């Protein structure tokens, strides 16, 4: 797509920086194919994992003949399997993400592309989806460095025109992707029905979940004055305000409470939470903040 060249999601400098990184997960998941990560599955790597008794039908090549000689028992030597990792990025492409400079969605796409690239380089199964996709619509699974262009094409085709609610979108995502792995959920969490039910799906889905809340500078420090009628871009809801100093300070308090609440909610449920500002460069976010949180290494 032409968009790719006009506004590159990933600059060459960023790519060079990302190549040195690696996605990390604290949990061990079962992969689908042979990869670079330790899997729960026992298989054929050089790393010893365990012994077990031979049962009929096992591969005789895996018998530990030394133990048979000593103990006169047929014992099979097990090795750990190295498989790939499911790496999902779920982007909230609702209309509320189409704000800010750059827009929050743009920022989210950039972040998703960067993390996806890391996954591709490390031969992980990368899949980038949006909340608006129905239970049947699946995004392609990308693997290997060669798939970078497909990844970029796919990401840049995402448009901020989805109206699915947060919990509905997350539920559909979980239904589509049965594979366990790392999920990076990029959203502004601004849903009038609340974000809690949505995040609970991730808990029950048993994935290693990173919630990155992207807020624009205008939301963090609103630069408004006068008597205004605020119109919600998604549901055309109206809030009439008269801007004053107490109103603004109250807004700050509310905003802080909101983000603190989200962080606390995530931490309690073993999810990672991070607040991102669209003014912060993606490379800084990845290299400093996400590395500290343990998503990349």
């Amino acid at each position, binding site marked *: 797509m032409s968009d790719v060249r006009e506004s590159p999601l990933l600059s060459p400098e960023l790519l060079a920086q990302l190549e040195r990184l690696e996605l990390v997960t604290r949990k061990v998941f079962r992969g689908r194919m042979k990869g670079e990560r330790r899997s729960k599955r026992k298989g054929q790597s050089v790393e010893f994992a365990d012994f077990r008794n031979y049962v009929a039908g096992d591969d005789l090549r895996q018998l530990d003949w030394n133990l048979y000689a000593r103990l006169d028992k047929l014992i099979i030597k097990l090795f750990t399997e190295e498989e790939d990792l499911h790496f999902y990025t779920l982007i909230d492409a609702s209309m*509320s*993400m*189409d*704000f800010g400079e750059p827009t*929050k969605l743009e920022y989210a796409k950039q972040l998703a592309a960067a993390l996806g690239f890391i996954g591709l380089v490390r031969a992980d199964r990368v899949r980038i989806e949006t909340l608006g996709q129905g239970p049947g619509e699946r995004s392609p699974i990308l693997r290997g460095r060669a798939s970078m262009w497909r990844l970029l094409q796919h990401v840049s085709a995402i448009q901020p025109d989805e109206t699915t609610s947060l919990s509905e979108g997350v539920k559909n995502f979980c239904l589509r992707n049965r594979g366990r792995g790392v999920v990076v959920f990029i959203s*502004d969490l*601004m*849903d*009038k029905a609340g974000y809690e039910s949505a995040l609970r799906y991730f808990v029950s889905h048993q994935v290693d979940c990173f919630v990155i809340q992207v807020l*624009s500078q*205008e*939301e963090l420090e609103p630069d*408004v*004055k*006068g*008597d*205004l*009628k*605020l*119109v*919600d*871009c*998604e549901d055309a*809801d*109206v*809030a*009439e*305000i*008269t*801007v*004053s*100093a*107490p*109103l*603004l300070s*109250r*807004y700050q*308090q*509310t*905003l802080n409470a*909101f983000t603190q609440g989200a962080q606390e909610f995530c931490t309690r449920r073993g999810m990672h939470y991070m607040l991102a500002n669209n003014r912060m460069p993606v490379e800084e976010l990845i290299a400093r903040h996400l590395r500290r949180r343990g998503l990349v290494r």
Partner: protein
Amino acid sequence: MEPLFRNTLGPTSWLLLGMVPLGIFALYFLKLKRQPVEVPSTYLWHRVIEDLHVNSLWQRLRKSLLLLLQLLLVFLAMLALLRPGWQGQALEGQRFMFLIDKSASMSATDTKSGESRLEEAKQRVAELIDQLDSDKSAMIIAFAEQAEVVQEFTNNRRLLRESLKRIEPTAGRTNLTGALELADGFANPRRLLTEAGEFEVAENADQGVELYILSDGRFRGVEGFSLGKLQPLYLPIGSFHTRNMAITAFNTRRGDERPDQRQAFVQVSNLSEQPQKVIVELTLNGGLVDAAELEVPAGEVASVTFALLGGAEGELRVKLDIPSEFQDSLPLDNEAFAVLENRRDARVLLVTPGNMTLESALSTERTNRLANVEKISPEQLEKSEYQDQLQSDIYDLIIFDQCQPKIMPMANTLFVGRLPPLERWKNEGNSEIVFGPQIIDWERSHPLLNLLELGNVQIVDTLRTKPPLGGGVLIDSTKGPIFSIAPRDRYEDAVLGFEIVGLEQDGTRTFNTDWPRKHSFPSFWLNVLEYFTSSDGTSISTNKPNSPVEMRINNLVETLTVELPDGARREVQLEKPGRLAFHETDQLGVYRIHVAGQIEKRFAVNLFDRDESDVQLRSKQEGEDGVQVVDSLSIGYVDVAAQAPSSPVRRELWKLLLAGALVVLIFEWYIYNRRVYI
């Protein structure tokens, strides 16, 4: 008692103004038009609003801070319109007239601020104008020698102030009568109408006119003037202790002992309460001629005389050098000017059938400088062009030698050997010719015979010249008077009884006297020219400022240029040839008359008015304590008492209030722009 408030608006205006706060209220309480702004989500905002509703009363008050400020602004503006003030002197009445004295004495700088009295008067009038309500009207008259309407009746205060600024000081004298007559014409129009049989003007029927006279009172009272509806108020300007030195007289005249010398006479008045020494400097054409120190006693005059060379001519200027500690308040009268005209372009007509001796005596260099002698024969005299000229006051002197006109010309005359054709001269014995008179005595003191020795003059025959009543005999002989002089209207006729050159019976010319061979003969004719052609040898009479100057111009031109003392030039069209009437004499100094690029004549305009120079306020002692108060003016039978030297002017707050309103406005603007932070 002065009211605290003074309303400036009518009920309609107040009604309109009262709707302004209501409008502000309405704008605030009607549905506020909010500017729509699209945001990602109103999720957080709704929670904020809900939080704030808890303490909504305080929020509402905070929101209406702008409203309160705007109401305060309107309130301040209203208060300013009410014009609160105190300690003021109310302007009572509906119509006002301000008579501002702009005469010379008003240029004195004895006010507290150090400005001239005129400036103070203008200041006072400006303050009065400020108090003028919009339904009241005023007019301004400035007066000196002549009164002039600066601004007619109007209630436009801006117009009045602008007109007030246009008043310039003059060097004229004070003439209150003219100003009062002018004011009367404006204030009492109904008088004229009733005289013409018209209705009385109803609207003015019971409206008096307040007449404010702002002057220093340097004039005598006005008599025989009825004020009618004018209600005079006299605001004296100036102080009692003003000091001034003035030149009150300056002229030149021929010396008493030596007639060829001129003297400049300067009189200096000390119009203060202490004696003072001054230095009088006399300059001629800019060069210092002489200076003298004069001690002038308090309230007295002193004079000094400077000797001038006989041939001196040009512009004389005398200046007082007053020590600065004297604090002379009127610099206008410290200078005086005079014009020294040595060259007299008098025109003399010699009517003679032929007289070599007389002609040569009248054609010397000195006589040429004194006069322009034309010679004609008696036959030419009969021609009509000369007849006209003789009656038109062109010649200063006409000498009739051995002839006489039919009617006496409009000029001084000198008859030689004939009697004037007038009944008065036909005294008994005058017409007969007597022989061999011996001169007994002559009037040595008369200018005509000044410095003459006539005892050795032999005369063959002569007519007796017994003068008519009022005349005088100048030369007496054994046979009776032979030279007499007598006045005729404003001229003088001199009659010399004996011919100088006579005709014999056979028609040959012969000498009748040996006088032409004596020294006294040319001197006599010089005396004749000097005596008749210039009036008396004094400087050209001084002219008063603002009064028209009339002069004789010998050049028969129709237009000429007058250069004013400040260098400005005015083209003047002569109405009558040879007569200049010039009116624009408001400056002091020397005026030069240019004809065809050359200075033809000059004249000086001087103040020389003790009344104007005496700049102290006229005072009188009043009451038992002998407090010095300003003397009142008497106009007709009315004594106009002077108002307090500084009449209290109403102190107004509206300017402060408006400034406060402006501050509130700025504050409101600030809050509006910065209310995010308040």
